[in-house]
Structure formats: structure tokens, C-alpha cells
């Protein structure tokens, strides 16, 4: 089954790319933006049909490789 993981920067970590995107949006006329934070999205097809086991597996991947827990948080989304 497919499981997705969203990796986002923690609140206190500076995100210069997000800041530039925010400023660019501002310049394009999107003036109602408070803040932009850029992250990563992974769609992982695992050989596992049990949703709980599949999510646990991807969570383990997040902890060990996909996210760096010093600066990033992860969120697992069951997609299929």
C-alpha cells in the first residue's frame, strides 16, 4: 500500500527559501500571506497491506533517514 510522509521544518528553524517564496508571492500581488514554510513530500509504496504496519514502517524510515529530527518534523499520511 501507499503511505505518504510530509517533512516540515520545525518552528524555530530559519527557512530562507520559504522567506524568498513569501516575498515573491508578495511581489506577485498575493498580499494576504502570513508566512511560507517549505517542506518535503514522499510517496512510498511498501510491500505491506496492513495499514498500521505500513505506517509504522514509514515512520521508522522518517526517524532513520527521511527526516533529520534536529530540524524537521514528520507526519505520516495513509493514502491508499
Amino acid at each position: 500500500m501507499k503511505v505518504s510522509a510530509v517533512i516540515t521544518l520545525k518552528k524555530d528553524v530559519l527557512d530562507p527559501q520559504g522567506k524568498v517564496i513569501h516575498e515573491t508571492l508578495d511581489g506577485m500581488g498575493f498580499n494576504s500571506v502570513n508566512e511560507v514554510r517549505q517542506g518535503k513530500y514522499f510517496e512510498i509504496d511498501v510491500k505491506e497491506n496492513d495499514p498500521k504496519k505500513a505506517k509504522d514502517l514509514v515512520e521508522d524510515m522518517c526517524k532513520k533517514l527521511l527526516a533529520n529530527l534536529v530540524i524537521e518534523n514528520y507526519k505520516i499520511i495513509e493514502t491508499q
Partner: protein
Amino acid sequence: MKSSVITFPGSNCDRDMDVALTKFGFKNKMVWHNDKELPKSDLIVLPGGFSYGDYLRCGSMASKSKIMHSVINFAKSGGLVMGICNGFQILVESGLVPGVLLRNKYLQFICKNVHVKVENKDNTFFKNLDKKVLEFHIAHNEGNYFCTNDQLKEIEDNNQIAIYYCDQNGNTNDQINPNGSIKNIAGIFNKEKNVLGMMPHPERMIDESLSGEDGSIFFKNLLNNIK
């Protein structure tokens, strides 16, 4: 004295490091990332470059490569390990030194000479060094050192900050900080001071006519300290 330089796919300062170590008297071996065993070594160097194309996060893939199990064991048993630039990124990703290296604050790749202040000489890397400020070269996109407040307190309490970005007189301030690093940190140690990660490249400063010789001073001193 024996050294080993690990080559990852995408390393590009591995041969420069080999030239530098050999020039100052190390018997150096090149080790491929897919090897499992390290040759007998007094010093392991993780060189600069763009291992695995900087995919995911700089150094994250290389930190999981086969040879890194041996490097981590070597470091944990007290062996000397030095990571330069991408090697520093691999060290933080492998957990051998605390913190992370974020994208440079102003989103630019920086390639220039910088001065660094050697803060802590109570370790094998900098012991007996007779200069306090060295001129090294930096070339990186992700050198902005970051750690949590708790980690910062811990590394300060344990004197783990190895070098700071500074001006030629050794003053550290925001103006001289090239990449936004917390406290101008350019390099740090692990708690036991046998692992050093730093963004600047000493191996690029070993030729009198090309670069100045602060790298030569560093390597000669390091060799004497290991002997």
C-alpha cells in the same frame, strides 16, 4: 602515521586531501564507500564534495553507506576522524557530532577565503598550534551550522566548538559570518574531541605560491600531535 580518505560517489576533494596528507608525511590510503573494513589507520578523513548529489539532505545518504559503520565504530573507540565540508555534513548526519548544516542564510553558494579562530587547543587536532587565527578556504551551499538551544548549551559547556569564523585579527561578529552559522561556528568536535567536523578546507591551503600555507601549518602540527 597512517591515514585513510573515504571516497563516496560525488566526493571531489578526496584526491586533494590525499595530496595534502601525503605531502606532510602521512601514508595515506583511499577507501571506497562500499568497502566494509577500514585499513589500519591513525586518522580517517571524510572529504569534501557532493556525495550522492546532495540528495535528500547533504551527507544523509553517505552517512548510511557501508564503510560508515566501520568509521562510527572507529570513532567510538577513540580513533581520530576528521570531516571537511561535505565530510562535516556526513558527520552530523551520522550523529558523530551534534547539530546540522542548513542552507546558507543568504541562499548563495560561497567560495572564498575566510579566517577562522582556533578556540580550543586541548585536543589532538589543534594542540601546540602556534597560530590562533588561520586562513582557510570555504566552498559550500549548506554550511549554516544550527543546533537546538539545549545542544548549544551542551557543546559550549563541553568546549566542543573547534573554530569560529572571524576577521584577520580574530574578532567574531555578524558581519564576518559568511553563512549565518550560530555563534559563527565553522567547526565542532564530538564530546571526546577525537572527531572534528569543519566547513573550511585546510587541504586547499598547502602551497606557498597558490594559496598561502595555513593548511600546511595545520597538517604538520596534526602529524606531530599524532606521532
